[in-house]
């Protein structure tokens, strides 16, 4: 069997999800007997092929100026030709902004079953099962492909470890691009960076992260006072930015910033994986949340299960008291 893994790159960098997926593919291939093929689409990306060759039995390289920037439509046109030709048992794509735009439509075109946002893949006999997280990350679901011989999965970023000792030394095979004309109905026109604010949260030693549990923008000053007492800066999770309670440059997580402070004090943050991915490199994580089953407590070293509106003012007072002592 062949496992076909789509490599992902952006602005001259091979993205980690590529190697994470190849590492997981190796596990499946070892278990079921099979070969891993990495597919690399782009322009001027030959260097990435060398890296990928360590993690795959074969690298298929398709270079075309029409593939310079990611475009789901162009990728779909290329991959559908390739997959029809090769008929792999499994296609792996990242559950990233790119993969989310690409995989579902490709699966429909190829009539393949698709499980997205998988955190793991399990082999049982001669079948593969996808493990996904649902309902705010509180429940796992085991999904099968209803007996189909072929399937497609998209893998959550950071869910799989990159194997350290992979030296497969796969051959790099250059394939002609099947694209004949420009895709004019969906055109990439550029990147836009988030606007930088006055505070760079990635530079702070102490962050007080505030989440949906704060309930109302009028309660933000209470968090600012705590941050001031402890000598830290206020950051937040996505819902706080979505509701426009704090600006985007304060957001920690997959679609915001990655932070590694000495202390991350999470207040009213449940701990969606996108948030955890942005702060789990912190030296010390402390969580205050009223829901004892909130996933944030699995990421934290210390936790207080209580109403944040009672804990935060008390904590601020106590800190000020100890500082004065």
């Amino acid at each position: 069997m062949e496992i076909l893994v789509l490599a992902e790159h952006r602005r001259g960098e091979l993205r980690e999800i590529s190697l994470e997926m190849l590492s997981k593919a190796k596990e499946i291939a070892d278990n079921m007997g099979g070969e891993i093929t990495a597919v690399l689409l782009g322009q001027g990306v030959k260097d990435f092929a060398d890296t990928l060759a360590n993690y795959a039995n074969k690298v298929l390289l398709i270079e075309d100026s029409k593939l310079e920037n990611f475009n789901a439509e162009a990728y779909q046109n290329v991959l559908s030709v390739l997959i029809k030709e090769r008929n792999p048992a499994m296609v792996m794509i990242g559950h990233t902004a790119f993969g989310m735009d690409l995989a579902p439509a490709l699966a429909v075109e190829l009539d393949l079953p698709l499980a997205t946002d998988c955190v793991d893949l399990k082999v049982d006999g001669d079948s593969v099962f996808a493990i996904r997280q649902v309902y705010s990350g509180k429940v796992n679901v085991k999904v099968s492909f209803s007996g189909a011989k072929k399937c497609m999965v998209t893998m959550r970023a950071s869910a799989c470890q990159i194997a350290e000792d992979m030296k497969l030394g796969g051959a790099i095979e250059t394939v002609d691009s099947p694209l004949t004309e420009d895709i004019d109905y969906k055109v990439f026109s550029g990147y836009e960076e988030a606007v930088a604010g006055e505070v760079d949260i990635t530079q702070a030693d102490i962050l007080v992260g505030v989440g949906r549990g704060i309930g109302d923008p009028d309660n933000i000053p209470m968090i600012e006072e705590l941050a001031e007492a402890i000598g830290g800066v206020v950051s937040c999770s996505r819902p706080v930015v979505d509701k426009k309670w704090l600006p985007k440059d304060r957001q920690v997580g997959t679609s915001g910033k990655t932070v590694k402070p000495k202390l991350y004090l999470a207040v009213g943050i449940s701990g969606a994986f996108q948030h955890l991915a942005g702060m789990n490199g912190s030296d010390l994580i402390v969580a205050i949340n009223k829901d004892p089953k909130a996933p944030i407590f699995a990421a934290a070293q210390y936790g207080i299960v209580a109403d944040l509106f009672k804990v935060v003012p008390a904590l601020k007072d106590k800190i000020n008291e100890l500082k004065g002592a």
Partner: protein
Amino acid sequence: MDIIVCVKRVPDTSEADVKIDGSGKNIDLEDLTFDINEWDNYAIEEAILIKEKVGGTVTAITMGPEESNEVLRRCMAKGADAAIRLTDDAFEGSDGYAIAKILHSAIKGMSFDAVFLGAQAGDDGYGVVGPMLAEMLGIPHATLITKVDLEDGKAKVHRELEGGLEEVVDINLPAVLGIQTGINEPRYVSIMGIRKVAKKEIPVKGLADVGLSADDVGEAGSKTKIESMYIPEVGEVAEIIEGSPDEAAAKLAQILKEKGLMG
């Protein structure tokens, strides 16, 4: 500009104690509150903002039992002109692919410039229905959209990438656009507002009305199958600081002081 918005009624599990039901393949929905999927709430708002700016119509469509009418009425109270509810016993157990087929069958004969929906749903979070629907309709799509600007026959959209980066994409209409949270500020709907639309008729369509057969939908028409649901084992968890809020806060302050993490 005529926009169809696909919406979904989902349980709110963010602060709930979630339990697996007797089948082992679903959660116990009994004590949960339901609302419009958060992403869809931004999608309906975006459609209504566009209608208010350039004119046209907004039609909300959902698949679900009678309780889903409350979500459709909420959409109408916000400004949607019409609503359609797709329902049939045979739809039960449909995966994202089968749901896309049902929506496709209901939508394909309608006249529209765009289909909006949430980029994903807060319950199962597959995020597949939009792009699958676009593929079935044979029109382009873009998902994770944080900005929509219309210019004759086209949309200039921003897609959210990772790390605070966005990409700008020009897309021909009609298209399917998957809306990301935070794109706008969804308006508040009062009980009075919902009461005003309480008498508006919501047409209901079943399997035969959308021209599908039982094999196309439900478990038979799905490509993936839920084998089991379970509460994941939690590994090492935080040391919980016990005591009243005041006591716990005092202990935490002491810990932080000892670790030199203060000021």
